[in-house]
């Protein structure tokens, strides 16, 4: 029997599950190799679990989400988070640093109707996760690699180095050295292919922190290039704001 794939959504923009539909060329062969058992954005046919592989997009932001992710975990042999929301809480985790009431009141005239948690948290804060694929959005080549790896039962071959290595590989001149542009490449997880530097812009960290990111050294260098405390605070506090190394770095530079 073909392995059964499920795709789940929590608080998110849908971009990471869209990455699966964006695998235009590979989609048909994927559909041949596995059964798409639950993927409501793409199909009206929804079958009960258990599932061999669950891809989870989005972060936990409501009381119901907490129950739901527990149910999904019980029905899934493997559970992989896709993207910055599911892996680190996403941009909506900025609420973790603010007063929720003020946040709700800024958007809704009748805040009493809105049911939400005070924090946006990654899936791993609630259930064990078999693999976390970083990126805002994820890279579709990495997504295919992760799906294939779980299908055949091996570890995904996803490089753990920084975006800097991707620049070197592509032959993109360092924007920090040649243009004096602040860049999060040295502390950011590889995967995008160094897109921003190849467009003459500094990396803004959408793939989240790499392992053992030396944010302090990078912040010092950015200061030498003229970055203010406020800018450093903001630059670490975006799509992966609640990921530990970036959270610490943003707090070191105050509000």
């Amino acid at each position, binding site marked *: 029997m073909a392995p059964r794939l499920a795709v789940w959504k929590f608080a998110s923009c849908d971009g990471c599950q869209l990455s699966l539909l964006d695998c235009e060329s590979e989609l048909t062969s994927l559909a041949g190799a596995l059964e798409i058992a639950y993927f409501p954005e793409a199909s009206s046919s929804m079958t009960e679990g258990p599932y061999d592989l669950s891809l989870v997009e989005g972060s936990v932001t409501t009381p119901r989400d907490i129950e739901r992710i527990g149910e999904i975990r019980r029905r899934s042999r493997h559970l992989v988070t896709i993207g910055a929301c599911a892996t680190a809480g996403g941009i909506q985790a900025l*609420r973790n640093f603010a007063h929720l009431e003020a946040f*709700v009141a800024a958007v809704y005239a009748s805040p009493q109707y809105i049911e939400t948690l005070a924090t946006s948290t990654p899936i791993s804060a609630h259930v064990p996760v078999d693999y976390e694929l970083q990126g805002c959005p994820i890279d579709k080549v990495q997504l295919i690699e992760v799906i294939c790896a779980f299908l055949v039962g091996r570890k995904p071959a996803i490089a753990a180095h920084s975006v800097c290595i991707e620049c070197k590989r592509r032959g993109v001149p360092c924007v920090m050295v040649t243009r004096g542009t602040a860049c999060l490449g040295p502390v950011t997880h590889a995967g995008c292919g160094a897109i921003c530097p190849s467009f003459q812009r500094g990396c803004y960290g959408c793939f989240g922190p790499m392992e053992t990111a030396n944010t302090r050294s990078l912040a010092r260098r950015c200061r030498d290039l003229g970055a203010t405390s406020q800018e450093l605070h903001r630059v670490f506090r975006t799509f992966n704001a609640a990921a530990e190394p970036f959270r610490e770095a943003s707090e070191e530079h105050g509000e």
Partner: protein
Amino acid sequence: MTPPPTRTIHVELLTRVEGEGALELRIEAGKVTAAELRIFEPPRFFEALLRGRAYTEAPDITARICGICPIAYQMGAVHAMEHALGIGVTGPLRALRRLLYCGEWIESHALHVVMLHAPDFLGYPDAIRMARDHTDLVTRGLELKRTGNEIIRVLGGREIHPINVRVGGFYRIPSPSELQPLAERLRRAREQAIGMLEWVSTLAFPQFERDYEFVALRHPDEYPMNEGRIVSSGGIDVAIAEYETQFEERQVARSTALQSVIKGRGSYLVGPLARFSLNFDRLPLDVQALARETGLGPVCRNPFKSILVRTIEIVYACGEALRLIEGYEMPERASIEAPLRAGVGQGCTEAPRGICHHRYEIDASGTILGARIVPPTSQNQLTIEEDLRDLAAQNLHLDDDALRARCEQVIRNHDPCISCSAHFLKLRVHRG
């Protein structure tokens, strides 16, 4: 067997739409007494988290509202900021923005036409199963989608949450030779889109028309994307900065989306039907002729035919993208200067699903003090509920499953983008 006169029909999770919504229909004594589109997509508070951020961050942050139409948010944000700063992007940079938007229209419309909407007409649960019997159609649709994505990748760096859009222009601009491979592709894509249009025009469309008040942008000489006045079939004709004089948002208990209405009047419709019906004369003559060949007049009030109008817009966007590439001359600089000043700016652009309005207030250092974003789906929410009510009233003879399927299709007609609209809706059906 005749269905009971009193029943409730629920759809707990709408499928083949972007984001999480539900539908609830209540039928009592043979009359539809409630038709609600519920949005339970959890709110993400974008307007709140934009406060205190730099004006330069708005295009990257607001892109994350929606993975399917990030360019719509980036375009709304940069135009609003440029309005606040008193600058305007013209010439080749303006043309490149339009080219990028063509990419998003092609990608988003092709996704909806083939993968989300067409299965309704042919009775499949999804495009993957549909592909087993209609391989050519699905392959062609995916190729069109890939062409749209390719434009976005070349100009924006990647398909989802592109990185190259900034206030004042771009970070890096392409040379004409970098755009040439796209031109080759677009010539083929336009032919494929015309082929798809022929196929779409053979579908069986339910007889259903509503007297919508259409709202869209209108530009003096272009089919609208980034600029124009906000006009309606009910006589509205105002500048983008006057949006709030005509429209207001209200909150309903069942939804994390705010619902927009025309002040003093009520519901309205944005999106392909509105854009087409208010701007038919702005389409090139050959595209007008293609539309007429499929049986469309200058106005289309049948929401099931939105699939036809989307396909027309794909044909248009392929041709327009080609025209922009052929006329492109690389400017000297990738962006124009934007000297800082305090102010309020508004931007309104035609997202694939309809107008999307942004308003920001910034201080003299460029820090965002307030933000308000009105996505297309929250503007269409009330209209979708009215469509549901009217269509259900005409189809009470159907059993629950058939009625439920028809109701879901009514919602998909408008390609709702539910993630966007939270600040947006959920549908259950009660028959009691």
